[in-house]
């Protein structure tokens, strides 16, 4: 836009003198500015293309690191070192969770006790039988070849002598039937036993 065009569009503006020196600078400013800029450049140690420093830090890292560290220290002192959050409603549900766990573990124990009550005596009998047969018979006998009925028969015949008291000592949590521990003795047999034996010696020994 030339001056004539400017005068047509904006006559007031066109008469204002174009005076760049309305803004002034200190004396000798432009004579000294180059040295000041070069000095600043060297002071900042600006790397050139031949810089050997291949390690870098994030932008403004050293300017901000102090503030970050102080903020973190303040945060820790206010909230403690335990910055781990707990899940929502954790403390509301912890009691139920504990009780559920207790129940599931007691169920396991109940099953274990039932298992021991019925299977343990038979397992012991079977192993004793196996030992007996191996000693008296050249034929190989396996545990699988014996049935429970055969084991029971051997016990009833007296071929296998099971000490119930030793079994109850090993498996204290197993409840044996009273019949296992009871002996079928008459009153007369008991009295005879007592007359024949030296009670004093029995008491002393026990």
């Amino acid at each position, binding site marked *: *836009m030339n001056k004539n065009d400017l005068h047509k569009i*904006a*006559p007031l*503006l066109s008469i*204002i003198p174009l005076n760049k020196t*309305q803004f*002034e600078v200190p004396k000798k*400013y432009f004579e000294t500015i180059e040295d000041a800029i*070069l000095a600043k450049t060297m002071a*900042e140690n600006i790397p050139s293309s031949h810089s050997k420093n291949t390690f870098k830090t994030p932008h403004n890292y050293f300017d901000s690191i102090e503030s970050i560290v102080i903020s973190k220290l303040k945060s820790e002192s206010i909230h403690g070192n335990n910055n781990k959050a707990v899940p929502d409603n954790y403390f509301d549900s912890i009691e139920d969770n504990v009780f559920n766990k207790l129940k599931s573990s007691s169920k396991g124990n109940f099953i274990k006790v039932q298992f021991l009550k019925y299977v343990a005596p038979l397992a012991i009998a079977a192993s004793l039988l196996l030992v007996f047969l191996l000693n008296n018979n050249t034929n190989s006998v396996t545990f699988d070849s014996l049935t429970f009925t055969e084991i029971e028969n051997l016990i009833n015949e007296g071929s296998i002598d099971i000490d119930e008291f030793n079994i109850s000592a090993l498996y204290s949590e197993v409840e044996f039937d009273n019949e296992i521990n009871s002996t079928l003795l008459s009153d007369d047999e008991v009295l005879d036993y007592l007359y024949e034996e030296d009670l004093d010696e029995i008491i002393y020994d026990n």
Partner: protein
Amino acid sequence: MEDEKILVTKLKNPETQEQAFRELMSLYKERLYWHIRKIVYVHDDADDVLQNTFIKIFKNINSFQENSKLYSWMYRIATNESITFINKKASKHNVDISELQYKMVDDLQNDEHYSGDQIQLILQKAIVTLPHKQQLVFNMKYFDEMKYADMSEILGTSVGALKASYFHAIKKIEEFLKSY
């Protein structure tokens, strides 16, 4: 243009860099200074921005791809540094940029480094009423008498848009001067 290419080559060569940088400053320091000064108004602020501008030019000379004029590239850096400076100053004082500019222009008459007369002061007040980009367009065209093609390269705006922007700026300033 050939001289500019030679200068750029020297600037990128570490062995000749310092001397070439002195030459670059000698060639462009005043033009860049006055461009910056018209944005930031205060001499001390313009001095800071000018130094930062040259330091940025020095740091980034290797990334200058020579697909534009060296002066356009430098002018763009100076413009961005000036705007960044003004934004920071406004933020520091908890005001928006327009409010800051009004205050700076008001303070000009008490500035030891300002010797404009009353009408020139009124013109400065008129300029700050323009949208920020339009202020740049007006300053570059009216005071620096820059070509639209060069302005387009610096501001990243089409020549047509720049012409329209300058036209609207003149009309607004004229209205402001009439109302005073």
